[in-house]
């Protein structure tokens, strides 16, 4: 066999291998958690065993009413909390056991808008995403600057680069925060209610950007949201939580059942198929 054929076989084997083992990037296996005021008391809140899996390029939405454990599940996935039982694997590694530095190179978290103590410029903020790649005092390299610039370009925010973070609009800020997450070059992108303070136009912009990024950069995206219709439109998979229990996991069309949603959200709703073939939820006030 000549060397070119050997190389081709090797390449074939390696892609086969990666398809077999690398297909699932994020694997949430029976994770549970309990909050309590002190160890001797009964827990105030429990998250029961939850499981789902996600592939590169896939968007997973975690839905549920207030206090259903959405953010807790996201923290468990991020490795910020240690599960009471079960485990979360990212490419085969337990996320909670990774060092903060390695974790930040693999997982980026976009949290509900945070207030800065002292204002900084957007480019400084985005460069923070490179922290996990530098040593304690390392000055940013040309590479870091290039990656940060690309991240800003990917969310369409190059023009904001020199603006102060406290002088831009909520939608612009959310894009810069997303750019910081992108400059971490993660495998897994987690977002905690990213659309919370945005108007509908900015929400659609953000989610369009997320869908494009997930496809282009092969991110696995997990997003916690209250927006049933946006989740239906953009997510590949939906995890529906109620009081810490996942009631159903699957594509939006299979999760969005009227009786199920009505029971979870305690309000009369109607569910129909939209023009895109995805379910659409509307409220039925006063019935």
């Amino acid at each position, binding site marked *: 066999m000549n060397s070119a054929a050997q190389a081709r076989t090797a390449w074939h084997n390696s892609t086969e291998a990666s398809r077999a083992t690398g297909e699932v990037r994020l694997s949430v296996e029976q994770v549970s958690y309990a909050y309590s005021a002190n160890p001797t008391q009964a827990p105030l809140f429990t998250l029961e065993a939850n499981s789902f899996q996600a592939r590169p390029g896939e968007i997973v939405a975690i839905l549920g009413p207030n206090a259903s454990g959405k953010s807790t599940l996201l923290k468990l996935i*991020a490795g*910020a909390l240690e599960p009471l039982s079960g485990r979360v694997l990212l490419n085969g590694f337990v996320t909670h056991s990774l*060092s*903060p*530095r390695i*974790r*930040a*190179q693999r*997982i*980026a*978290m976009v*949290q509900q808008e*945070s207030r*800065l*103590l*002292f*204002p*900084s410029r957007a*480019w*400084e903020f985005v*460069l*923070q*995403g490179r*922290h*996990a790649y*530098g040593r*304690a*005092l*390392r*000055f*940013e390299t040309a590479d*870091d*600057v290039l990656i*940060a*610039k690309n991240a800003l370009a990917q969310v369409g925010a190059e023009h904001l*680069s020199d603006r102060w973070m406290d002088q831009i609009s909520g939608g612009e800020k959310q894009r810069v925060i997303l750019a*910081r997450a992108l400059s*971490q070059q993660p495998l897994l992108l987690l977002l905690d209610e990213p659309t919370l303070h945005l108007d509908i136009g900015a929400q659609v912009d953000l989610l369009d950007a997320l869908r494009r990024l997930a496809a282009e950069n092969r991110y696995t995206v997990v997003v916690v949201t209250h927006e049933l219709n946006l989740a239906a439109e953009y997510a590949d998979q939906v995890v529906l939580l109620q009081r810490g229990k996942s009631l159903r996991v699957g594509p939006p069309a299979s999760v969005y059942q009227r009786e199920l949603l009505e029971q979870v959200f305690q309000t009369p709703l109607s569910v129909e198929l939209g023009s895109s073939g995805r379910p659409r939820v509307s409220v039925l006030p006063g019935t």
Partner: protein
Amino acid sequence: MRPLTFSRLLLRCGILAAILFAVVIVALKFGAVRVSLYGLGLDLIHVMLRQNSVISSEYGMIVIDIRLPRILLAVVVGASLSVAGTSFQALLRNPLADPYVLGVSSGAALGAILALIAEPHLALSPSFTALLTPLGAFLGAAATITVVYFLGRREGQIDSGTLLLAGIVSASFLSAIIMFLMTTLTGRDFRGMAFWLMGDLSTSLQESVRWVLGAGFIIATGAIYTTASDLNLLLSGEKEAMHLGVDVPRVRLVVYIAASLLTGLAVSVSGAIGYVGLLVPHVMRLIFGSDHRILIPTAAFGGAIAVVLADTLARTVVAPSELPVGAMTALAGAPLFLYLLRRRLA
């Protein structure tokens, strides 16, 4: 995008070092014996080059032996307090935090006084006895910041207002204990102690204390500086910093210990000089921005410059008598504190 480069950092520090040098010369000039600025500059360079024999003037020796140690003490104390303040502000996410406001200075003062009281009862060698006060001050500072930190938490998160109140209440409680202990002192000691509590740089230090002070300053400031880029991320909150790759518990531990050491050492040799740790970091932040890789060294220089200037004023405005330097810094610092407080609430 213009990220910080090493040459930019060096340039800023060089400029501030030059200003500090000029301020030290001016400070050397003022005092009972009149000397020329030019001669002083020359003498100081000779001292730095270890050419003590060529110092030209007879008054040079007075200036170098009496005024210079005091000014160098002011340099180290000012830099220590300012670096401690900078790191407390970042770590506690509170622009009003500084060793004095948080009660850390009072804790250090109490520790120092307890060490002074305990000293005669312990049979220790004289060189170690001198180190007992700095040790007591460090332990006092570390204990206070630990207590204030836990009192300032609400639902697992640092709460700005609660923290500040916890610090102020702790400071007044500790001051009350200090007052109580001072009643056990004799008249002359009492006056000396009262002066020291207001911040006083006039005491001459033993050789061993000077070494501990210098080494402690370099080690603690170095330790804090290694966390400079972590502190940048901590400004947007502990959780966010963690998700960006900061080992938050480690940074917290390093900075608390190092900042307590800086405060403890400064207080044990100079008493509680207020507002330096609060005022200087803010001024430096206005000039150089809030990147701690540049803020920490510039704050060190700025603190040194501020305390040397304040001490020079304290020595000269009511000459031949003198004010405690802490009174001088409070005169300048209290109005600024109020201004920041008002702006924050607005």
